[in-house]
């Protein structure tokens, strides 16, 4: 759909309907993909706004930089592997290789669950080191940003688990292809988001 062409058309002029079943002036996408992309923009807005407050708060004078736990690098690796697994699963699904699509899909969820656990350990480490959520602005933002990201990962895992159950059952690959594709897009988004967050948290 060309937005400019659409907005500059003259609807009062009579035009007979076009042939075929394709919907005029719609995106050439399944509705689920449109909704997911829109949701990712909304989530992006949420993180951008927290990011803005983070940088504003950073300049207010009482900022004590946080030394980021090394475990975060391992967690990042887990999320990267989870995302790669999903991509392989998606490609396998499109090549009609059900077994590979299923195993890589399950594997991606396990790596992502490991990421969640890893983040939990990071929180435990920080708390044990005397850096609680209310210790200083840097620790507060660390818990806030990683927590928000974690909520989005858990939301993704909930959808992943529904698809995983269908894949583990007898569901036809064709019926879960779209779900695998959606999960893949969302996981890539979560990964990009995490990399940006990690960069922001590490560079103070």
């Amino acid at each position: 759909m060309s937005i400019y062409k659409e907005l500059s058309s003259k609807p009062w002029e009579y035009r007979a309907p076009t042939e075929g079943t394709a919907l005029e002036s719609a995106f050439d996408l399944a509705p689920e993909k449109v909704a997911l992309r829109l949701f990712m923009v909304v989530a992006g807005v949420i993180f951008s706004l927290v990011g803005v407050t983070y940088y504003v708060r950073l300049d207010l004078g009482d900022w004590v930089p946080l030394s980021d736990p090394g475990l975060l690098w391992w967690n990042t690796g887990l999320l990267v592997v989870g995302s790669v697994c999903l991509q392989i699963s998606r490609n396998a699904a499109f090549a009609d290789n059900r077994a590979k699509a299923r195993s890589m899909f399950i594997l991606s969820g396990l790596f992502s669950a490991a990421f969640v656990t890893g983040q939990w350990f990071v929180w435990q480490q920080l708390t044990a080191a005397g850096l609680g959520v209310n210790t200083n602005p840097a620790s507060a933002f660390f818990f806030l940003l990683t927590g928000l990201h974690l909520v989005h990962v858990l939301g993704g895992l909930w959808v992943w688990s529904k698809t995983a159950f269908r894949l583990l059952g007898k569901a036809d690959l064709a019926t879960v292809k779209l779900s695998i594709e959606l999960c893949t897009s969302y996981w890539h988004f979560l990964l990009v988001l995490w990399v940006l967050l990690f960069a922001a948290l590490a560079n103070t």
Partner: protein
Amino acid sequence: MAYVPIADQAQELHDPHSFITKYVWSQDHKVIAIQYGGTAIMVGLVALCLSVAMRLQLGFPDSFSLIDPSSYYQAVTMHGMIMVVYLLTALFLGGFGNYLIPLMCGTRDMVFPFLNMLSFWVYLLSVLILLSSFFVTGGPTGAGWTLYPPQAITGGTPGSDGGIFLMLVSLGVFIIAFTMGGLNYVTTIFQARAKGMTMMRLPLSVWGILVATVLGLFAFPALLVSAIMMTFDLKLGTSFFMPAIMAAGEQLDYNGGSPILFQHLFWFFGHPEVYIVALPAFGLVSDVLSTHARKNIFGYRMMVWAIVAIGGLSFIVWAHHMYVSGMNPYFGFFFATTTLIIAVPTALKVYNWVLTLWEGDIRLNTPMLFAIGFIFTFIHGGLTGLFLGNVVIDLPLSDTYFVVAHFHMVMGVSPVLVVFAALYHWYPKITGKMMNETLGKLHFWCTFLGTYAIYLPMHYLGFLGVPRRYYAIGSTDFIPASAQTLNENITIAAIFVALAQILFFINVFWSLRSGKPAGGNPWGATTLEWQTPDTPPKHGNWGEKLPVVHRWAYDYSVPGYKDDFIPQTVAGDFGVSDDHDSKES
């Protein structure tokens, strides 16, 4: 991949079989719309009662002991938040959006019916959480609807324990509900229209709802973020927004936070919120005006562009709510300029509504009266907005009753008049019955004149410097005693207007039982929702076959055609294009 219209996928219809799935856990957009609308109106009535309690205090401060200073602030806060978020946003998008989008687009339902149902129930949960704050220790928050820290969570402010927490949780839950609904509305409009229904053939109602939903999807995150961060400050002791502060003689544990940061976040949501309410109203009123003036809407393309432009500009005007926060004057200059720029597309819309009426075959029935009434109140509220958008004029008027009068005219009375216009207009489709015209007209005149009697004098109170949010003004040198007389009159008018709404409810219920049968298209309207095979439309809306759209939504009084309207489903040229084309070019 060619998209197969949702409407042709019969198995996707989720036909309800029991009372519960038909009317309670319903996935039908029309039932969900009524659930949304009914809940919003009910909670709106709570807010209306709160405003009457406030007015009784202001008009007759020594005569009633209904509320004390604390409960006055609680009433102010809950009234504002309920009206803006839980009534107007929910009613326009959850109510009208749900009802009209699938019908006007020519589809059988929203693209994600289950998510749509979930959206309503989560919205209901947010309302219940909000209302539960009336019953917790300390009552609801009295921080003002803007919930500014530090006072919102500092002891001494009414509801600073449970009330504010429940408010923040409720807002978070509301935003989740809105996001579920919003993703549905946008996706449905983009991907599930009937064949032939191009974006530019959509009625302006759908355009208004679409852009408002996009605004909501991008603006509500700011409120969500500020609510989460304030909850952290309140419950976990962080200092995102809380500065070092003394309260009741004690140094609190907060340090270094920025209350101004909260204000920026809040208004980054708060200003688009004005248009989240206004844009659907603009769209709905355009369709009501065009139908009852029997004329095509003047400058359809310009109207669409104006909606889109207003939507975009609404994100860069937020700080005009913060001129007195000590901002850099250049910053103020920037926001004053953008505020004046947004007046251009807004004024364009007003001109186009008036020009739509020009030489129209106007039928002054109840929906049309409310629609024309809206033009008056919106111009009125819009013009005072030009005053307040300028920094130098805003400074002396800030936090006075002039501001109260302005925003009530522009985003209280005006959208509510459109709500009534739309309810009177679409009631025959929703119920299959006509509403009583005499009662409707009486309701209009009482509401229209009554609201003027409330808000016109408030501007003068503002000029006198009477401050808003005060429980009692007391005796001052600069406020003459006559201001109190004015306040008494405003209170009487407010009670009159509140009672006049009973006429509407009598009409709704009486007409449901005894109203004249409406038929499918009582107004002779062109848009798709009036072309359904059944009225009220049955589950699935269109019977066996989906409609095919052949023309735009505004072919009224076309010369040479047998009727004074041509439904969008009618094929054929009728020489319309030449006539319109020559006029436009």
